[in-house]
């Protein structure tokens, strides 16, 4: 029964609101009506499953999965962590998709105009599925910071984007990972859409010297928390719940 309960209400004060004028694109893309509180029906408590058979051996190796003539330029890193729910239980079988700029801060994308060089050996995408303990890992190079058209001189801190599927569509989440010690985190109009400093700190990966491979790659630990669900047998499932 414990995996059949509905999900805890999303804490909208912990997430960024829709309208955040310091991030200019949100101004015209933010709904103005209040969200309609629906809660969970079966349509939200179910979700697609992605099997390990969907993944190739290099899907979680961004150093090698686009390499043409050699390895990409940049600081070699391993990113690892767990996907947990709000009850601190591991979420196995979660599909994670990640994407990032190269070491110079340049994305491989036709709409990207930053003057930093494209790296011929770096695509910038990967994916992984968590194991039975909710663990994942991937290897990549540390992305660079880059300027973006918002304020006249706004720069994004180094970051990796994450898309996460849990066990239900209600848990669907896209977020970004930042790097411990980066002062630019606190200057970023996108980071600051998150109102609570403790919530921002939840997105900062810790430098993990014990996970670091000697003479090879630094490691960063990044745990992701998805919504948790009620486990009580006494839940009232009538309308209005």
């Amino acid at each position, binding site marked *: 029964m414990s995996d059949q309960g509905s999900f805890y209400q999303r804490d909208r004060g912990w997430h960024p609101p829709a309208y955040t004028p310091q991030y200019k694109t949100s101004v015209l*893309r*933010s*709904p103005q009506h209040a969200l309609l509180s629906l809660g969970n029906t079966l349509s939200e408590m179910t979700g697609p499953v992605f099997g390990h058979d969907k993944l190739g051996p290099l899907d979680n190796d961004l150093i090698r999965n686009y390499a043409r003539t050699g390895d990409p330029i940049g600081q070699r890193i391993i990113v690892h962590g767990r996907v947990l729910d709000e009850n601190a239980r591991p979420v196995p079988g979660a599909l994670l998709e990640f994407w990032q700029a190269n070491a110079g801060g340049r994305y491989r994308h036709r709409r990207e105009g930053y003057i930093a060089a494209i790296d011929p050996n770096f695509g910038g995408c990967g994916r992984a599925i968590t194991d039975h303990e909710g663990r994942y890992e991937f290897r990549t190079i540390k992305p660079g910071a880059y300027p973006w058209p918002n304020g006249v001189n706004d720069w994004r801190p180094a970051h990796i984007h994450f898309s996460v599927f849990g066990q239900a569509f209600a848990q669907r989440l896209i977020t970004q990972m930042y790097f411990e010690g980066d002062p630019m985190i606190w200057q970023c109009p996108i980071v600051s859409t998150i109102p609570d400093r403790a919530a921002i700190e939840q997105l900062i990966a810790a430098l993990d010297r014990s996970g670091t491979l000697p003479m090879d790659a630094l490691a960063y630990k990044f745990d992701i928390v998805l919504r948790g669900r009620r486990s009580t047998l006494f839940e009232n499932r*009538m309308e209005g719940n």
Partner: protein
Amino acid sequence: MAQSLDQLKESPSQTAGPYVHIGTNPNWVEITGVWEADLGLVLVGPETRGERIIIKGRVIDGAGAPLRDALVEIWQADAAGFYNSPQERRGKADPHFVGWGRQPTDGTTGEYRFETIKPGRVPFTDGRPMAPHITIWIVARGINIGLHTRLYFADEEVANAECPVLGRIDNNARRNTLLASRGEENGLPAYTFDIRLQGEGETVFFDI
């Protein structure tokens, strides 16, 4: 101080940004050879049961412009109203229908488009049937947290009138923002569902 509840906080959302397709649809943005096919492009195969339909539309901002950099995901029941999910305990869904799809909006027109099947009815929490619907989730640059809405079918008047979710929306004009209008394309029913993020005709979005 009372005892700790030992609960964690959900990781806060951040915008998917302008380059979300690098991670979700790399082949579509010419990052080829990393994996063969982008996930979620094809929902229906020859053995899938149910009525073939097309759903399409645009995601429109507060100035009336379609988003050409958005990503749209859908999640729906099969033709008999079962979800292809381990959390589905009422019965077994059609094994030839996953029920999940994902498409970028077109880089020129801003249109999204899915070929799928008409979903069956799924019970609400109290057992009353909801009208056939498709859950839609939208992310894009400028959207700080993914937006959940539902596509309902305008030609399902009876089911829609009985649907406990649609019944919660008192204002008719607001309710109608969730109805996709029926047309035809290549001999298939084609439902148009434009999603308005802001302003006149703003689509109803849900807190789920």
